[in-house]
């Protein structure tokens, strides 16, 4: 029936029509896509223009759409204006150390969970899932009381451990997925050659799982980099405070130096966005692995 409706004679014109329709559909999709993208970038575009606004143009009533000139030196003077550098160093220390701790505990655990079946395996998986579902926000009072008891309030160690403890799940899911995908025969062959389990993991499995390791590293680092609630609760001095908390400190001031607030924000956001894009492919599986698989 459908054959009779499509006479073979006028193919060229109907094909052209179909092509046109396809093109206009693509065009519409592209326009919608770019509108959506702009909408999502808007707060960051505004951030950038404010960061480049000369100080005397910040407080216009009503606001100007764009500054009359772009003050690139804001990105230089911001370092002198406030303890930004200190905040940045603190953030780097906390996020890096938390990432190292996460890798140290999650690599062996993920390996064992991926390779072996044992009695308490399900319970352990459940526990890992729980750490992912219970954000530190809901427990911040408990965390605070614990750190008071341990005398760890306002220390790097407290922030490192809390970040590591709550953000290890992603790493466990991603790594165990990678480890499980490596055929056991590969490891067996190495063991026959006299390698121990540890050296098999170190020399064969880990190098083969490099993308997983990189993903786990980047994700943990970024999550710790952006962490706010625990840092707000546990830090009381500039020497320990990370950037996220430091920035909110500017806002309470009488005259907020918005250009500096946003110059700092951009310094913190831009590298992280590129890192996130690099691991985009694996994000969903790491965040939902407790369920989809």
């Amino acid at each position, binding site marked *: 029936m459908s054959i009779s409706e499509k006479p073979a004679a006028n193919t060229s014109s109907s094909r052209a029509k179909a092509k046109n329709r396809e093109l206009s559909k*693509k065009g519409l999709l592209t326009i919608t896509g770019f509108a959506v993208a702009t909408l999502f970038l808007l707060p960051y575009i505004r951030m950038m223009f404010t960061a480049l606004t000369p100080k005397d143009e910040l407080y216009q009533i009503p606001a100007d759409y764009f500054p009359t000139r772009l003050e690139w030196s804001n990105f230089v003077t911001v370092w002198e204006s406030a303890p930004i550098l200190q905040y940045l160093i603190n953030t780097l220390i906390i996020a890096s150390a938390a990432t190292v701790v996460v890798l140290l505990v999650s690599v062996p655990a993920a*390996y064992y969970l991926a390779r072996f079946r044992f009695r308490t395996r399900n319970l352990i998986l459940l526990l890992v899932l*729980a750490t992912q579902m219970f954000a530190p926000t809901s427990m911040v009072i408990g965390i605070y009381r614990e750190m008071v008891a341990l005398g760890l309030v306002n220390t790097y160690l407290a922030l490192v451990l809390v970040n590591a*403890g709550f953000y290890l799940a992603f790493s466990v899911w991603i790594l165990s997925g990678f480890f499980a995908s490596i055929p056991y025969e590969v490891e067996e062959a190495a063991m026959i050659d006299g390698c121990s389990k540890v050296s098999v993991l170190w020399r064969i499995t880990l190098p083969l799982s490099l993308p997983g390791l990189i993903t786990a590293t980047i994700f943990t680092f970024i999550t710790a980099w952006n962490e706010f609630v625990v840092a707000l609760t546990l830090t009381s001095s500039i020497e320990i405070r990370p950037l996220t908390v430091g920035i909110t400190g500017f806002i309470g001031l009488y005259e907020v130096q918005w250009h500096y607030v946003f110059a700092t924000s951009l310094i913190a956001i831009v590298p992280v966005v590129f890192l996130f894009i690099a691991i985009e492919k694996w994000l969903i599986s790491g965040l939902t692995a*407790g369920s989809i698989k």
Partner: protein
Amino acid sequence: MNTTTPAPPAKRRKKSLIRRFLAGPLPWITPMLLLILAIVLWPVYEMGRTSVLEISGSGVTKGFAGLENYRELFDNPNLLGAISRTFFWVITVVAITIFISLFLAQLLNAKFPGRRFVRYALIVPWAASVIMTATSFRWMLDGYYGILNRILLDLGLVEEAIDWMGSAETSLPWLIIVAVFVSLPFTTFVILAGLQTVPGEVYEAAKVDGASARKTYFSITFPLLRTSLFIATVINLINVFNQFPIIWVMTGGGPGYTTDTTTTLMYKLAFRSQEIGQSAALSVVNFGIILIFVLIYIRATGFGKREDR
């Protein structure tokens, strides 16, 4: 060779014990378990314990309080408002987020020039610190210097500048918008992942049967998205319930307590009003609510069945 030169028995037994220990799960799993125990489980215990202790404003424990903190909490005049606001906040944000995500995922699943750029743009709010995103919104919404008022004035939509964060009626909708804004990337990508698992032949078959685009979506795509939708919804529910930075930066729960959710109220009770006991009681309640979500999630996704994947 090995069998012909046996090691001394004592040494050998020692070695095999170490071997056996190394072969079992303990050395591999214990570091992680210790960390979880110390960082995730201990605070739960501390929270529960603190909620039944009498603690002075300066943090000194005065003794056992029984359920006194809970009684005080439920007598707190700001609690009821915060609870009903939390319900409203969570349901509105999640519903709007999921609805928009369905469209965005569909868009990103289509092929068009520049799709990669749109994907990357969507990742930005996800990667960026929520604190900083919320700060930018707060600046754009500033009553005096904010760009939004300028735009609205120029378009003639308002007569005079509005102090958006000045009252709950104008700030709450904006808090919801910002929460949706930061939630969209995750939910969209989860749904997109779901869309990409739908085999192309299914659509071919529907096309051959002459099904309209809408019918195809509602009778084929949507049912197949059930799992992803469920996951996106529950995780988003938990995240929105726990959302703290947006409210903290934009209104601080104020003016007064008029934009507080139970999460921000819990924080203010402990670190503004020095009511640690009451705050711990509220966090036990909050924790219980999240626990319910988590249990639903675990049951519905058949977590236990992962054993034989």
